[in-house]
């Protein structure tokens, strides 16, 4: 027997969460047949099962684009600092791709590395993630190459599987997921779901091994030639976590703010002296790939990539990481890959 929920009941659930004051997010339709994860005001706005991949990731809900760390104010010469209000919302996200859910879990050790980043952690604790098993995939997907898959439950509190006819099978994995769907589902003998299958596109382990030995290597200039350095790949990436700390306001009152940043910009590592360790795009590309596939695994035992394919999907030159990884994996096998 399986637990199922009808689409109508799902909408009722979403609307009741919103009326309880919870923040509910999920895929919404944008312009040009594109979809994005965003906060919704009613279930009607959300497409739990959109026909194409959302452009962004749910990173926005646990690690917002901008987040105030604290504010400062001068009263004459007296300066006071005030903490940003604690995050007290409860967030429930629906229609999340399994690869996006995985990302939150991959980021956990970083934000707990010796110093706990309560900003990330409090949002993480207060967020329930309901994934939708992928029924369709596209050319850019490569989650299976990283050991995940269209039905991966890592980082998810519950998962919906599309049974067709407006019915979803509900699988719950955590207490948060169980309590969300408690009393909302019905028993059914409909079983199974045709989640998509996806062939493994490269050997991720071989990539990591190759990167350890090839910091200085022609691959970086070869693969970065078509990179324009816009940084879009890092903003749509569910695991890219690099940030800047900036000042908003003026010298009398303002806030210190954490904002997304990207390793693809030259200023990212530009020293005050004028020296820049990563002055070329190839060095910045190298850092991105090395960080994801070698440095992070060496530090935390996890590859900083989920195989979602967003970076290639949104790249104006269709680069992103996958073509580079396939190139490296072929090199690692001793093949001469086509660039």
């Amino acid at each position, binding site marked *: 027997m399986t637990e199922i929920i009808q689409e109508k009941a799902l909408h009722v659930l979403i609307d009741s969460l919103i009326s309880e004051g919870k923040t509910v997010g999920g895929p919404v339709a944008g312009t040009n047949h594109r979809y994005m994860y965003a906060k919704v005001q009613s279930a009607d706005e959300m497409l739990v099962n959109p026909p194409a991949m959302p452009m962004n990731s749910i990173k926005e809900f646990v690690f917002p684009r901008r987040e105030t760390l604290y504010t400062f104010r001068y009263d004459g*010469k007296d300066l006071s600092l005030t903490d*940003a209000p604690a995050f007290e919302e409860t967030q429930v996200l629906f229609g999340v791709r399994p690869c996006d859910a995985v990302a939150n879990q991959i980021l956990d050790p970083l934000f707990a590395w010796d110093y706990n980043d309560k900003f990330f952690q409090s949002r993480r604790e207060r967020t329930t993630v309901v994934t939708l098993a992928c029924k369709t995939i596209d050319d850019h997907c490569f989650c299976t190459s990283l050991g995940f898959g269209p039905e991966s439950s890592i980082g998810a509190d519950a998962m919906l599987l599309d049974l067709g006819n407006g019915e979803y099978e509900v699988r719950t994995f955590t207490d948060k997921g169980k309590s969300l769907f408690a009393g909302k589902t019905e028993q059914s003998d409909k079983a199974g779901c045709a989640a998509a299958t996806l062939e493994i596109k490269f050997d991720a382990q071989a990539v990591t091994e190759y990167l350890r030995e090839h910091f200085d290597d022609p691959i970086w200039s070869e693969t970065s030639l078509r990179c324009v350095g816009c940084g879009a790949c890092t903003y749509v990436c569910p695991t890219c976590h690099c940030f800047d700390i900036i000042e908003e306001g003026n010298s009398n009152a303002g806030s*210190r703010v954490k904002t997304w940043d990207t390793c693809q910009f030259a200023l990212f590592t530009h020293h005050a002296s004028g020296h820049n360790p990563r002055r070329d795009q190839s060095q910045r590309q190298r850092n991105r790939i090395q960080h994801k596939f070698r440095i992070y695994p060496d530090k935390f035992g996890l590859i900083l990539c989920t195989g979602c394919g967003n970076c290639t999907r949104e790249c104006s030159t269709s680069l992103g990481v996958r073509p580079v990884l396939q190139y490296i994996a072929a090199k690692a096998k001793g093949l001469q890959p086509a660039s």
Partner: protein
Amino acid sequence: MTDNIYKPDLMEVIDVTQQTVDVKSVKIRFRDAERAKDFSFRVGQFGLYSVFGYGESTFNICSSSNWHDHIEFCFRKTGRVTEQMWKVNPGDTIGFRGSYGNSYPTQAWEGKDLIFVGGGIAMPPIRCAIWFALENREKYGKITIVYGARTVGDLVYKNELKEWAKHPDVEVLSTVDPGGETPDWSGKVGFVPTVLKEANIDCGNAVALVVGPPIMIKFSLPVLAEQGMKDANIYTSLENRMKCGLGKCGRCNCGPFYVCKEGPVFTLEQLKLLPDDY
């Protein structure tokens, strides 16, 4: 929110000294007496210093860890934050986060001769170690300080150089690049590596701390190597651009090493394992 790792402590500026035309050193102490009591650091560590409304910059803590009533840092006026830091006066309030990073292994250095080699604005990260060693004088052997700058006007902590030279068994060799001397300059004229070569140093039982511009480091290392100094006994302090200092913002890494957490202090032996990413 409690435990906000990004929120600085408020510090009272107690003294500002102009060291060169564009370098100042600043003494600060915690406004919160309780925090001051809890605070400790190790020489070689760094902090992030805030001018509110402008931003944060990263500097070494250049005072000795034995000085409990205040900490010091030194900066060059070069950007948005340091332009404002330049205008700070005693009595003003700035922000401080730290201390962060690893430190000089002062215990492992005990019983050894110490060779300090610095250039220009890189004196502050050496100064903290010099004072620490002088305050624990019996634990260390001969101390040699080779410090150079482009011109006499670019030397920082000039008065302290004289003071250090008064200590027993301490040799201070200050030098300026050819053309950088003034008529009353009594120090040496020449580049740091040359002066280091002529110095009477014995690398047999010594460690060296070499901090300065890349060109100075590049030519000083072979001098030490010729004298038989092992890579594992040569230390340096790296600087890389930082925002958080906490291992999270993702920009200060040299290959797999985060300068803010696994640095800033590295031995030459470790440095040779680092990729060319700094």
